[in-house]
């Protein structure tokens, strides 16, 4: 009996091994095919435009925004180049970064896409951690056509590595119906400070019963908006930690505490709860990057009830009513099969197609950083969702006054250090000065 069993097992193992071998062979032949196509495609690039062929794989996150936009870009490009196959892969941001890190660290490029999306805060980290992995696009893309602050984020040692995409220009989105009920007009909300904002919030809360802001007290987004509005960051221009003696961060932390104490917020935890809060009409305003428009508009029943004002500024000299949160750019991975085709694709659509930028602005609310597009018709259009306000003209205007800063390499480490001490600041168990000193110590030990 035992013999029979062991024999059976052995046969099974051999069979399964054979099956494995078979399948790898199959997948190999499939993988081989595009290779020949691409090498053909590269030759063709030099000859005629119409005969480009090959395959480009693109990684990005957010199906309502980046993916939808990339799919439209794909549609435009493949219309002129029918032999080009473009695959847009939707991966959650965290997973995408994880895949990118593991693949780049392994040094094997088979699993990597030709084009990937990288968040601006992370750009320098990738460029410096994986030298030689990203294609130098200096001279291949006309970077003069893009906003300078954006280009400087992807420049390392004088070389520019990416194609700038969306701006994270920040806005103070508010529910005009709630604020009118509390007695405020648009003019009352322009050029205000955070202190004014809190006062307005108290009135709104009293008169409408609604929270002024849906807000996660453990989220660093607003902190980054406040810091950049004053042109400062966790680090100075040389990359040294600048927290304990940084007046801007001190003021920002003070403002966070004031907001927490004022009782004007609806506390949320994580992205989903936050979006749900303003979609349900529980909060009178949202202060964040322009990319949130898609999520705000997702609640169609609130059409006509929203408006946008410039963000409040910090009560400190040098702070302006304009800032940035997030934003990302496209990068081409060196040595991938369809690299040249990918560059051509990005150059044709993102680096030269004005119509494309007009369409994604209207459809997805994507404010590109491609300067020639900003004089286009869509930027001047009135948006019915925002009560006929020319929101994009406003955003383009604010974008010009965003102070340019170097985010350095350790934004997320610094975020983590600050927000580890924030609960103690909220409860009042330590002073702001002590908290910042503690955060700086923590960060110093962590990133030495």
């Amino acid at each position, binding site marked *: 009996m035992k013999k029979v069993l062991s024999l059976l097992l052995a046969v099974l193992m051999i069979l399964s091994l054979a099956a494995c071998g078979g399948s790898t062979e199959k997948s190999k032949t499939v993988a081989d095919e595009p290779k020949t196509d691409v090498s053909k495609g590269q030759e063709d690039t030099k000859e005629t435009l119409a005969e480009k062929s090959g395959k480009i794989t693109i990684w990005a996150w957010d199906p309502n925004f980046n993916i939808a936009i990339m799919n439209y870009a794909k549609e435009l490009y493949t219309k002129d180049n029918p032999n080009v196959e473009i695959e847009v892969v939707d991966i959650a941001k965290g997973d995408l970064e994880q895949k990118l890190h593991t693949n780049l*660290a392994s*040094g094997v490029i088979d699993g990597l896409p030709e084009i990937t999306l990288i968040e601006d805060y992370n750009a320098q980290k990738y460029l*410096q951690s994986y030298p030689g992995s990203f294609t130098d696009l200096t001279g291949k893309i006309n970077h003069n056509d893009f906003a300078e602050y954006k280009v400087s984020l992807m420049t390392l040692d004088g070389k520019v590595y990416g194609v700038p995409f969306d701006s994270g220009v920040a806005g103070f989105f508010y529910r005009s119906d709630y604020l009118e009920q509390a007695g405020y007009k648009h003019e009352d909300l322009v050029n205000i400070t955070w202190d004014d904002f809190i006062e307005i919030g108290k009135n709104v809360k009293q008169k409408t019963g609604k929270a002024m802001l849906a807000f996660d007290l*453990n989220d660093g987004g607003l902190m980054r908006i406040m810091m950049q509005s004053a042109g400062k960051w966790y680090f100075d221009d040389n990359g040294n930690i600048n927290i304990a003696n940084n007046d801007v961060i001190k003021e920002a932390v003070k403002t966070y505490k004031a907001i927490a104490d004022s009782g004007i917020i609806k506390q949320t935890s994580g992205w989903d709860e936050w979006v749900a809060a303003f979609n349900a009409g529980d909060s009178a305003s949202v202060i964040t990057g322009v990319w949130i428009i898609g999520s705000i508009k997702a609640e169609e029943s609130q059409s006509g009830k929203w408006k946008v004002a410039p963000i409040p500024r910090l009560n400190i000299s040098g702070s302006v009513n304009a800032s940035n949160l997030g934003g990302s750019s496209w990068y081409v991975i060196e040595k991938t099969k369809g690299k040249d085709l990918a560059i051509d694709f990005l150059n044709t659509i993102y680096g030269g197609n004005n119509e494309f930028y007009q369409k994604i602005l209207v459809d997805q609310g994507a404010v590109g950083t491609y300067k020639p597009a900003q004089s286009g018709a869509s930027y001047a259009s009135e948006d019915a969702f925002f009560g006929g306000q020319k929101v994009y003209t406003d955003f383009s205007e604010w974008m010009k006054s965003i102070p340019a800063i170097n985010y350095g390499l350790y934004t997320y480490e610094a975020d983590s250090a600050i*927000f*580890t001490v924030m*609960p103690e600041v909220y409860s009042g168990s330590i002073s702001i000065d002590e908290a910042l000193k503690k955060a700086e110590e*923590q960060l110093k*030990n962590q990133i030495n």
Partner: protein
Amino acid sequence: MTGATSSRSFVKSNNLYGWLFISIAVILLAVFLLYPIVYSLYLSTTSSKGIVQNFVGLKNYIRLVKDPMFLLALKNTFTLFIIQVPIMLLLALILASLLNDKTIKFRGIFRTGIFLPAVTSLVAYTILFKMMFALDGFINTALMNLHIIKEPIPWLLDPVWAKITIMIALTWRWTGYNMVFYLSALQNIPDEIYEASEIDGASKVQQFFHITIPILKPLIVFTSIMSTIGTLQLFDEPMNLAQAGVTSATTGPGNSLLTLSVYIYNLCFKYMPDFGYAATVSYVIVFIVAILTVIQFKVAGDKS
């Protein structure tokens, strides 16, 4: 004489076949288990920025002692481990001995009900808990409607409450799993022992402490070791409860849910990718697990 040599060659060829057969397993083990262990030990002596790697010797281990974020993760993990594991195991013991009572009706249904959480996906249950424990979620609404609390409890918004929430979640998920071990052992305890003690006048509580627990001791040690390892490797729950993967500044309010495994993840994928330092942290987990296991064996007094 000839018989002896032939038997020796038989042994020899037998040995050869033996080695041949286990060679597959040995090679696979070497490639997929031994090599990563040795390589990660080497990795832990380097400091890296992605693929830019420097040999630093033992500096990573020194850095570890001074790294406040690591110490915080260690503290968080131990807080969870010291409070949650005993509560869970005690609960599992009590439930197991209750459900072992033959007089209880619908025992099968109760047993299945309590074990069912153990088959749910970690991510799925954590996300459900996150929704239930939101500020205006099911738990707060229910408690307020029952007039048990006046203000909603900031389950996931306050460092202390966040820890309590994750402990509740972990207990829900793993109690049934541990209970099944105890239950299977209890079923092997002959009824005669209980009957005899009953005749001697022992109460149910005395039976529990003087019969059930001593007999279950090996299993209690086993489950506590398994739970220790599980807690030290805790990842899915804090990651999803805090939605810490993407842009959030901390894992839970004030990094209160930052566990060692989440810290390793952050070091690799969220922060400047330092795989060397991450390997160091993972080696420390191995050492801690080894030490704790030895302590648990000693405390249990198992001399064999």
